[in-house]
């Protein structure tokens, strides 16, 4: 029992280290540097640049900087942001909760959208499936920016049901979560519907119906289990999508959050912040992929024996 847990922890640590190193390497290789941002609109001379670089320790060899980062990470020291001049832990700490709230609600919405649409339309008339599937595809392929602006125009600017911005009360969370949930829900719905229809074609479905099971009982109790497996697998990989979509949603809705912090840190080459965000995302990924593995067992009894 202990061994698999240790293995899991060990592989988690390797993933974290690999993520940190890859992010560090990518930032080193990308052109430009942090000093550009700090210089900003201000005067710009080689002396000023040298002074800033010395102040941040950027004048040391890359390898030394890298080892220094790892060493400090091991001690839980994420350092200070080069650009924002605040401890990274404070920045991330203040921005995590708004993003978590947003993504959790968006996940819930997208699950409702995906399962709801799939159940309602699977195996139904061709025109209905075609219509819904067409709408889903347009939402999936529409830029997130556009969805956000459209939702705002209708529900905030015109109808005034929801406030435009910020992380204040529950009503301010609805539109951003919907904007984030629509494309994911649309995508998952496609996958689940296909799974449902395949399951409905299986002999066991005919048998169940022949034994008097209602259509909805068949869908909910049997077919959905089959259809959820690929959807859960896909959902696990959608975490990256969630974070990158959150960038746009947070920007359009003027919400605080990790997405905006991460993009700006990457643009500014604010390495301590980027590394912290990457580590956090990797940690969440490790946790969620473990959860997804557990979810398989829950959904599919056949896997429990192995």
């Amino acid at each position: 029992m202990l061994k698999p847990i240790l293995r899991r922890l060990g592989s988690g640590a390797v993933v974290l280290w690999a993520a940190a190193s890859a992010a560090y390497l990518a930032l080193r290789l990308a052109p430009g540097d942090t000093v550009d941002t700090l210089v900003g609109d201000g005067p710009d001379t080689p002396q000023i640049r040298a002074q800033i670089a010395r102040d941040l320790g950027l004048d040391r060899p890359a390898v030394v900087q890298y080892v220094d980062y790892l060493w400090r990470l091991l001690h839980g020291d994420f350092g200070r942001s080069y650009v924002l001049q605040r401890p990274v832990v404070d920045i991330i700490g203040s921005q995590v909760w708004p993003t978590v709230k947003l993504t959790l609600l968006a996940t819930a919405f997208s699950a409702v959208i995906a399962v709801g649409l799939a159940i309602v339309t699977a195996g139904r008339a061709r025109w209905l499936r075609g219509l819904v599937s067409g709408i889903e595809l347009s939402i999936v392929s529409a830029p997130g920016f556009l969805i956000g602006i459209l939702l705002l125009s209708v529900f905030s600017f015109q109808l005034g049901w929801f406030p435009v911005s910020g992380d204040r009360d529950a009503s301010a969370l609805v539109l951003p979560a919907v904007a984030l949930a629509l494309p994911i829900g649309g995508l998952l719905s496609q996958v689940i519907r296909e799974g449902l229809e395949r399951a409905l074609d299986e002999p066991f479905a005919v048998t169940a119906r022949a034994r008097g099971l209602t259509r909805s009982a068949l869908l909910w109790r049997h077919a959905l289990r089959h259809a959820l497996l690929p959807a859960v697998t896909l959902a696990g990989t959608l975490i990256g999508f969630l974070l990158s979509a959150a960038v746009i949603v947070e920007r359009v809705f003027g919400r605080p959050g990790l997405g905006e912090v991460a993009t700006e840190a990457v643009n500014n080459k604010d390495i301590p912040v980027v590394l912290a965000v990457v580590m956090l995302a990797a940690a969440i990924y490790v946790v969620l992929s473990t959860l997804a593995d557990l979810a398989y067992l829950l959904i599919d009894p056949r896997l429990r024996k192995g």
Partner: protein
Amino acid sequence: MRRYLASLAVAALLLGGCNGAAAEDPAAGNSAPVQGGKLTWAIETEPITFNPHQYAQAKARLLVWNSFEALLTHDDKGGYLPWLATAWEASADGLTYTFKLREGVTFHDGEKFDAAAVKANLDQLLVAGYNPGVASTQLKNFKDAEVVDPKTIAVHLKQPDVLILDFFASPQGAQVSPKSLKSPDLKAGGPSVVGTGPFILDRYTKGQEVHYKRNPAYAWAPSNAGHQGPAYLDEITYRFLKESSVRVGALTSGQVDVIEGVPATEQELVRSDPNLTFAKQLNSGTAYNLYFNQTHAPFDDIRVRKAFRDAVDVDAVLQGVYRGTATRAWSILSPSSPFYEASVEKTYGNNPAEANKLLDEAGWSAKDSEGFRSRDGKRLTARIVLSAPFVRDKRDILAQAVQAAVKQTAGIDLQVKVVDQGTAADALAKGEFEVFDNSRADTEAGAALGLIVPKGAPINRHGFSDPELEKLIVEAQATSDPARRKAAYSTIQKVYTDQAVLLPLYAPADQVAAQKKVGGVGFEPTAGVPGSAYTVWIGK
């Protein structure tokens, strides 16, 4: 700086405008200012730092003077007015500036404002690594500060430098409480780094908003501020809304009271809305210019530079991109500068015949299969590299409009590259560009020209230099005679036009729009950016 149309008080309280047609009075129809109330203002840019010493974003300037103040402030004629200093004088040799300080001023944390505080601020700015930019430019001639008595400070210079007054009126010269200078978050600023201003920053939510409350003890506004005593508003929240269409939507739906940054495409909508007021003001500093890189072909040949300039119908291009909302620029400096040289207007441009003649003469007479000019089998190509994070005012679209114009009228292949900041910096460092774009928002034109004109100066990427002009820059910085300074900067502008060093496009401007019930939204004299919330009030 040249706000002749507006009297001092009006400029600050209402909206002075050098562009009479564009500026409307947002307070029109409003009655007397109302005391109290809360206001929400949506702004485009979230500041990187709230410490004024670290200020580097012109778009964040409207926040600075809410909670911080400087020794001097700009008037609307290119001069200075007393603020935290009640009087100042320069010694005959120009090496010592003595400031008499206002009495009874306290910082938000209760610390007293006195000469020791001013000295502590100056000393802090020279701490290695704190702000190398200020230490090596604005304070490069600063020697030391001497506390004569609690109300008097003497600033000694290494050599005469009239721009030091501009420093003492700039955000970087703002006074931070000596106690705050020891805060661990000093560089980032925020609630723990305080000043003497009419508002107190009490809450900052990164990515969302910054909140100020009124400073009830405030009683030292400058004479051009429009009123005295504490501010009208009880509270003000600046919300960061980066998307311009979202800002406009939030305003039209009444969710915010004021917005800053109204894009050209939305200005018509905002102006025609009877519930809203709209105003704009040209910024100080330089115009938005395209500079030609003269260090290599093809722009090492003045005929090609002139041809490029003549190939563009700037008015038509601006009309197409900004729908008539942009103010055309003719010189390196913005027309709002008191040093602007108007005689260069209409001396060039929109002359396709001349452009083609010049290019023929310069040897670019062959045409390749795509219709571009070429010489010795090489196409007449120019690259312009725009850094995506710094593109504002749709400058990428503007570059494409110029691209189309020079292609159509003169067969020049202008390649517009919109890239990330790192790639752009790289291209500039390696000289892999023929055209570069820039605008500067300095309040003092001399400071901007000092960065552009001298050989090897930070933004002298065009490679043009002239010992005569460099001498003028130095002289203009050392003399306090406005006429001599004007003459020097006029000469520079004329030479730059004659030598076709650049193609000026438009004068950057700021816009504000507000609900009708909001009064007193204005622009800062000289800088031309939206002013602080001190004069703003909200009707019932």
